[in-house]
């Protein structure tokens, strides 16, 4: 029986009474100049290859979305991914989100015009939360993704702190409170990255994802830490993630998209099936 049939028959896996999860898998490509890179804790960057070649391969394998982050945009004061996005729209026909160094409504407009579907804002949204509302009013909430990089507070304090400037600067802001505010201001989606787990392959910070997913009504994308197939299932089943961003696990060939999707389907997690013909 397929997941679709299970849902239509009203059968629910035991996941706290929520409907059967139906998730998207997103390939996260952090880009520095012309290169796809990957770091640990958003630092210590290593060159992986050509971003478009990787995006193209993931597309052919059935990835559901592409997420490009310009990891050095803040050094140049603007997002430099226009060329890569332009190439991507020639032969990749799935949603494309672009983030990194997006500072203004004008930046959002520029990236939408070259073919991005959604724009992720982080540092500028923390500095100027009205940017979220302005962008949502101008282009619709559906294209405004608020990216939240969060780090567990030191031993003895509960919760997570929001970091900005690619995880380099502390803000003192509570990540769950910021998530709620961002959703109220008009974010259509939240990209939640655990700085503690990012690039470690130690598994997602499931508690962080869960705390935010329970607090907001908009979809939550979990990012940072996928190393094993079990990790992906856990952040969906226990963390309540609506989408999962994958980087190392794809870039370093630890698992193919078909393998991941089949594994999730076997756990009763729905979604678009992997491509059989590719």
């Amino acid at each position, binding site marked *: 029986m397929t997941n679709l049939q299970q849902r239509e028959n009203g059968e629910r896996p035991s996941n706290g009474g929520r409907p059967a999860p139906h998730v998207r898998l997103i390939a996260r490509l952090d880009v520095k100049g012309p290169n796809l890179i990957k770091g640990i804790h958003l630092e210590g960057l290593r060159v992986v290859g050509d971003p478009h070649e990787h995006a193209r391969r993931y597309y052919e394998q059935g990835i559901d979305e592409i997420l490009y982050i310009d990891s050095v945009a803040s050094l140049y004061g603007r997002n430099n991914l226009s060329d890569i996005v332009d190439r991507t729209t020639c032969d990749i026909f*799935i949603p494309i989100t672009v983030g990194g160094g997006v500072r203004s409504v004008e930046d959002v407009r520029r990236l939408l015009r070259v073919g*991005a579907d959604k724009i992720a804002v982080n540092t500028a949204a923390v500095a100027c939360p009205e940017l979220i509302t302005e962008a949502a009013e101008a282009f*619709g*909430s559906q*294209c405004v993704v608020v990216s939240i990089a969060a780090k567990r507070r030191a031993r003895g304090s509960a919760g997570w702190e929001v970091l900005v400037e690619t995880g380099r600067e502390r803000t003192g802001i509570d990540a769950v409170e910021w998530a709620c505010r961002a959703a109220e201001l008009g974010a259509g989606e939240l990209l939640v990255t655990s700085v503690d787990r990012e690039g470690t392959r130690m598994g997602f910070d499931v508690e962080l994802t869960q705390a935010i997913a329970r607090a907001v009504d908009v979809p939550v994308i979990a990012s940072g830490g996928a190393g094993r197939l079990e990790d992906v299932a856990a952040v969906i089943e226990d963390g309540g993630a609506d989408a999962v961003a994958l980087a190392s696990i794809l870039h370093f060939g630890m698992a193919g998209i078909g393998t991941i999707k089949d594994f999730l389907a076997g756990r009763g997690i729905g*979604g678009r099936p992997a491509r059989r013909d590719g």
Partner: protein
Amino acid sequence: MPAPIASILDYDCGNLRSLERAFVHVGAQVRMIERAEDVATAGHLVLPGVGAYGQAMDGLSRRGYAEAVAAHAAVGKPLLGICLGMQLLFDESEEFGPHKGLGLVPGRVQMFDKDRAADHGVRIPHIGWTAMRPGPTRSWADTILADVRPDDHFYFVHSFHGRPADPNCVLAEVDYNGERICAAVHRDNVIGFQFHPEKSADAGLAILSRFVGLR
């Protein structure tokens, strides 16, 4: 034989690049329509759209597109509305409104039931890939969805959805939030998709190809 032409209405409504590239990819030519008087010479016309309903209708009316698109539909030429472009085909929307629509498909556009969504732990907006089924009174044979397989998934992103007054206009539907959502509307020569065919990989490209008569 020259490649068929898809005419895309440009009224500053977000990402048109992807739609343009998708039509080119399936072998069509693309003509961007930037003046109302050019609508009259369009064959296969596409009405895209993302963002807010009221703003989009204002944009269409201000440029004289609203009458031009209605005239295009009235003479029986093919019209395809995508996402917000589909919602604009209806009589009106309750989004920050009510706002009047193009009135080409009887019915209205409404928001997902938020209380019900909260009870069910369902997210709004609906963002994701979903398989569709034919509307209760419809078959896909000989329609634009004739090539769609039951397991083909399509990309949706929306908080509002159209409800045709005539159930026979529901060409395809999906379930979300425990509600039946009209995913594709079809009335004579007027077609609307709530999903994004240009963002739905091969399954979506096949539909665009069929729209311009390439298969």
